[in-house]
């Protein structure tokens, strides 16, 4: 599927602010089911935007506006081709999770992180779900995924930073909460899990259903990926009780929200500001490659090499 993405954030400050410095994570990732056709970031007031790939492989666009301004608008536009993820054809037993090499490789994604506390409650609920599944990592992942359907999608009910226990107690939240709870449960079970930030082409945020319209207004979305021994990463969208499809566009992955927050920044001036975010996705009538594996998620070494090349390129441009 080819999608045009239009991401826009607008800040209205209470007065003149200056020396604003920001980082944007909104660019579709290049990996085994996504190919980036085009991407561009513009700001008003205008600033020089430079970018890099961070530790997790996410493209980060950075920019600063030194002179006084009262509003700031950031527009990111891109085009991406996506395919359906490769099906999982292996069914490793749970014992494979305890393999020392497997655990060592994924240690960062087995530990708690600021938004992913591995609490007793999380562990208990996770084990209850897992207990109903066969001795198979994929089945266990599905059991937890299904179990999360007890939570209700409640738009605007929470802000990022609700502790996972609190989400369980409240019985629901927004997609970030679903993702954090899911990641916490998987890690509690010894399944390496990462938080994914992205876009979902959907007509309905609550169900994630496909739409007849070719253009939709959405919010940034979040889901999870779990490591399946012998397969690789397997992506699930707990908010919409779906597997990840070609309508999911991945921006980046990390331990939790903090590693992939769409926009971070600081500025000088009065603290009050209003924030507007809108995201529009448009389906293009172009036949994208149907086969899986159109890119490859880069290894750490590839990432380092890519980064060096990109730095040289940017320096030459200067």
């Amino acid at each position, binding site marked *: 599927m080819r999608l045009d993405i239009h991401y826009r*954030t607008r800040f209205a400050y209470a007065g003149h*602010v*200056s*020396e604003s410095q*920001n980082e944007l994570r909104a660019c579709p990732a290049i990996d085994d089911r996504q190919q980036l056709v085009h991407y561009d970031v513009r700001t008003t007031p205008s600033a020089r935007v430079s970018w890099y790939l961070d530790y997790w492989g996410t493209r980060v666009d950075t920019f600063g506006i030194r002179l006084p301004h009262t509003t700031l608008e950031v527009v990111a536009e891109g085009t991406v081709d996506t395919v359906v993820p490769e099906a999982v054809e292996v069914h490793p037993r749970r014992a494979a999770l305890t393999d020392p090499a497997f655990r060592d490789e994924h240690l960062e994604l087995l530990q708690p992180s600021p938004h992913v506390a591995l609490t007793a409650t999380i562990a208990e609920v996770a084990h209850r779900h897992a207990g109903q599944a066969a001795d198979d990592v994929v089945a266990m992942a599905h059991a937890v995924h299904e179990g999360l359907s007890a939570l209700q999608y409640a738009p605007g009910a929470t802000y990022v930073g609700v502790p996972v226990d609190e989400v369980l107690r409240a019985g629901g939240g927004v997609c970030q909460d679903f993702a954090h709870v899911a990641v916490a449960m998987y890690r509690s079970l010894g399944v390496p899990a990462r938080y994914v930030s992205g876009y979902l082409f959907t007509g309905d945020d609550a169900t994630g259903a496909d739409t007849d319209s070719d253009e939709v207004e959405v919010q940034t979305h979040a889901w999870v990926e779990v490591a399946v021994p012998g397969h690789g990463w397997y992506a699930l969208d707990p908010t919409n009780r779906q597997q990840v499809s070609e309508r999911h566009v991945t921006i980046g992955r990390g331990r939790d929200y903090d590693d992939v927050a*769409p926009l971070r920044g*600081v500025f*000088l*001036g009065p603290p009050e*500001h209003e924030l507007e975010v809108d995201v529009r996705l448009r389906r293009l009538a172009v036949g994208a490659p149907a086969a899986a594996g159109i890119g490859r998620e880069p290894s750490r070494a590839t990432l380092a090499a890519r980064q060096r090349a990109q730095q040289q390129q940017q320096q030459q441009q200067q």
Partner: protein
Amino acid sequence: MLARLAENLFTAGRDIERAEATARMVDITYHSLLESPSGERGDAWEQLHEVLGTVAEPDDDALARLVLDRGEPRSVLASVTRAREHVRSVRELVSTELWEVINDLHLTLATTGLARQVDEQPYHLLAGVRRACLTIYGVASDTMPRDEAWRFLALGRLLERAAMTCRLVQVHHQRLEQLSGPSRRLGLGGDPAGLEPGPGDFHQWVTVLKSAAALEAYRRRYRASMDPADVVEFLLLEPDLPRSVAFCLTGARLQLEALAAGRRSRAVREVGRASASLTYRDVSELFAMGLAPFLLDIQARMQRVDAAIAGEFFRHHPSGALHAIASP
């Protein structure tokens, strides 16, 4: 030179000057009142507050407030404390001797038990502050090269002093005009055979001159005369009196010209204009156009000088606090 440090030196220059002037004027007011009827006391302190730009609080002990009150940002103690902090931040740029005298003054003022001393016998402490402030400039003047650091320190002092003398003349001129009428020297007094200035007025003009540390110099120049025109001429226009407004603004212009180092400079232009409105001026012109509007005009010009300096030399200093944006 870093803008922050330049501004710290400039502010330190202002604060030391203010501490010295405040100590001097508090001392003079306090002692002149010992000989005055008690009814004038409130008036005198009120005038001093006006000159210093401080606000009298009801039932306030003006003496304690202006000298040792940390809560009054323009008190002697607050000014010295601030000056010490600022000089501490630029220790690399000033001489060790300068730091030591400022630190000593601060340590003296921070001694406990001073409040009682001020209440019972303020002369010793106030004279000590004045001497220490003069020592600070003497030491700075004799141990620092004429570099940017020196110039910003000197500039702050000169501009503060000019502003203080202006307010001194402004406040007292209004009062005295009500009492003794306009200058007789300029023939503005109407009836030439009218009243001679009364002893009370004479006493007040003496206090004004003392407040500007200019009485001795005035006597040498004008002998026994105590005409408002002479006093105003001396305090505003006298090119050779270190506390006259003309002297300070000329000095400030020279410092700014050196700091601008040949660049086009709004600060130099503004200080040049302010200074030119005093040089080559005859005191009769001032009275002809009205002293009060003239003083307001010169003060407005000095504010433009301050703004121009901030805009030109300190403008890159960040303003406001740093905040994180709310996550979308």
